[in-house]
């Protein structure tokens, strides 16, 4: 049987009716396998929502917003660009192709090319094949990966920087310094790498108590590096000591109600 991808399209409230209408009446593209979710502004979509969509088994995610100067909320849609940049960094960690996410600007005067873009995206996702997360069990390695990325995306450290990205790269910070985009990108990479490992450990220890050695084996890291993260996580109240077997301490995730 031929593979038919499941694609979720997030549409902004202000481009939604015209998007669907003009593409339909223009007989360009019937959107056979795309389901749309309406939000007020495409900037409303945070990375967590997209990652969650993948976790639920979607093969591709399309973000459709109005052209930047057309935004009903002035520059709300520009926030989506930052969201997508972060997503392209996060998705590979979960074992998915970053091209499974696409941001499209829609303008009612460009329905012809818009339909073509949607079609191209559909074909691209089709070529990637089904998402490996489609029929995964909740506790599998891949599932843990995507959940860890989701936690990274909802982490304070990433989000506080993400919210200020526009301010920092386009203007200056409180000390009057201009931060180049590359520098901020490197910071993002650091944050994502560190936080991903931490949240991975957190999710693993949530299932059962782990020793440092076990953790190192599971994720394929050096035990010393794992221990450094464990110390850090204990300081942040993410993890606690569960019990000691012989001389080996076992750690368990601290669940916050």
């Amino acid at each position: 049987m031929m593979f038919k991808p499941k694609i979720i399209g997030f549409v902004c409230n202000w481009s939604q009716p015209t998007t669907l209408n003009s593409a339909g009446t223009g007989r360009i593209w019937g959107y056979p396998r795309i389901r749309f979710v309406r939000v007020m502004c495409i900037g409303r979509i945070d990375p967590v929502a997209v990652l969650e969509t993948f976790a639920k088994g979607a093969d591709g995610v399309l973000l459709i917003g109005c052209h930047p100067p057309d935004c009903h909320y002035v520059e709300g849609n520009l926030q989506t660009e930052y969201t997508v940049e972060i997503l392209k960094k996060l998705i590979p960690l979960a074992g998915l192709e970053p091209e499974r996410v696409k941001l499209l600007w829609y303008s009612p005067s460009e329905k012809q090319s818009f339909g073509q873009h949607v079609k191209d995206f559909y074909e691209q996702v089709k070529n990637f094949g089904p998402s490996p997360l489609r029929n995964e069990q909740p506790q599998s390695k891949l599932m843990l990966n995507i959940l860890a990325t989701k936690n990274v995306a909802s982490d304070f450290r990433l989000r506080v920087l993400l919210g200020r990205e526009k301010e920092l790269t386009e203007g200056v910070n409180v000390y009057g310094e201009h931060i180049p985009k590359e520098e901020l990108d490197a910071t993002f990479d650091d944050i994502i790498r560190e936080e991903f490992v931490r949240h991975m450990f957190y999710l693993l220890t949530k299932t059962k108590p782990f020793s440092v050695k076990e953790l190192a084996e599971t994720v394929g890291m050096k035990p010393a590096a794992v221990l450094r993260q464990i110390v850090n996580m204990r300081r942040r109240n993410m993890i606690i000591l569960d019990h000691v077997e012989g001389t080996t301490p076992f750690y368990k995730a601290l669940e916050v109600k």
Partner: protein
Amino acid sequence: MTVISCALEKKRKLPPCRAACPADVNVQGYISLLQQGKFKEAVELIRKSMPFPAICGRICVSPCQDACSRKNSDQPVGIRYLKRLAADIEREQGRIKPDSILKKHGEKIAIVGAGPAGLSAAYELAKLGYPVTVFERMPEPGGMMRYGIPDYRLRKYVVANEIAYIQDLGVEIETGVEFGKDITLDTLRDKGYRAVFIATGAQLSSKLGIPGEDLHGVFHAVEFLRLVAQGKTVDIGEKVAVIGGGNSAIDAARTSLRLGAKEVTILYRRSRNEMPALPHEIEAAEEEGVKFHFLVAPKRIIGEGTRVKEIECLRMELGKPDASGRKRPVPIQGSEHTYTVDTVIPAISQVVETSCLPTVLLDERKETILADSLTLETKILGVFAGGDIATGPASVIEAIGAGKRVATSIDRFLNGQDLHAGREEETESVSWVKDWEKITKKPERYKAPQVDVGRQSVSFEEADRLLSQAKELATVEARRCLGCGPCSECLLNEGLCDADKAIVDETLCTGCNVCAVVCPFGAIKKNERGVAQVDDLSCKGCGICSARCPEKAIIMERFTDDQIRTDISYALKKEFA
């Protein structure tokens, strides 16, 4: 709920376009609807505030466009064209016939004059459930909209269609009834009418007051346009001089061209900058070949026998500004010169026909009816007057505004309420745009097609294509609107903006200020307690703050994270074809 909270604000905050409109038309609301291609809903929304979308879409002086915030960046949004297109699409695709409104009140109301003021008052009163009768002297209702504005600007069937809508609501219009002759205030009272609204307008042209004005070949603009509108033949000859610089002067000039005049000249005593006519009308007249002579005033009209032969004029120069703010023209002595003409059309102003009115009602100068500007009461209890008859010649939209105000007054009068209480509400025009540099310039403007396709008929396919093209252009133009006011109160929350609002959970907020940075409208600020606070009036519910909040302390009222999560699950579970 949000909508009501906006409306109950003591000082109503309105977008600039709506604050500028004398009839309080919800401009921002219907432009938002047009942004989404909802043409029928847009017309319905306009009809909530006034009954003439198609007429105003053609001939309104559009104070809304003059007030539009967009002009600070490039050009105002083409509000009038958009309204015209929406109304035209609705009419051509079959106007929805409204149900006649149940007459829950017994008090009969008489309205004298079926012009814009009278008809909009009738419309509002009929919506309130009063039995209304409109008396009109001319054979057809419409007033100046039918007999004063030439056909090329406003087709008769457009007027007829809008009036038919009012009649469908249950308003009765009796034509051929003259006030002062067939009916008077006394006979109306005897017939059981509890309130009378006099809105007969300013139906007479002002006289020039110069020698030779009664010669054959002098037509005053209003009478001239009325004769043409009635389909009567007017012999204007080949050379026409129109005196004046207002819209009716331009109308008279362009009509003369259409009647076969070879040379039409407009004589205006000030310069072009002071002309009160609409700029696009002046341009259109120029394109059609109307000549303009500025700083010229007529001194006398010279006849040959009983027929006009020449007009003698004086040159003027501009002096100090007068009461209207325009520079006063001062004649230059000895600058007499003549133009050879067949017809002279004075179009300087209009006056109220006071002969049929009871003298009690008139003001000291015996020119207009003395009426309260807010409630439109006159000196006689139960008699109201508004529109041109009370203000002197003005625009259609101002007459509509007067009609709306009088409807409220009459309703209160018949219910024995205070006519003044709470009427003078303060309005404030607000706009969130602080920095115009940041706004992207989008100078392209949609213009309603002025000419027909050129052929008598088009195929269905062509018509369909033209229509969808027009709709697309209109949507693009509507998107130039910045939506700069607060909640537009389009009253169609479902599906338009959902009236979403951000709510801050203060126990979770850490005061990181990310929300204040991302909010496009500056609606969130940290308050003195160090937590984020949302300004309800400025918040437009985009939800960007909620998406960016590091602590998830901001939740949206309707599009919550849970809601989006449910939507995603539902979309994924649905059977993929």
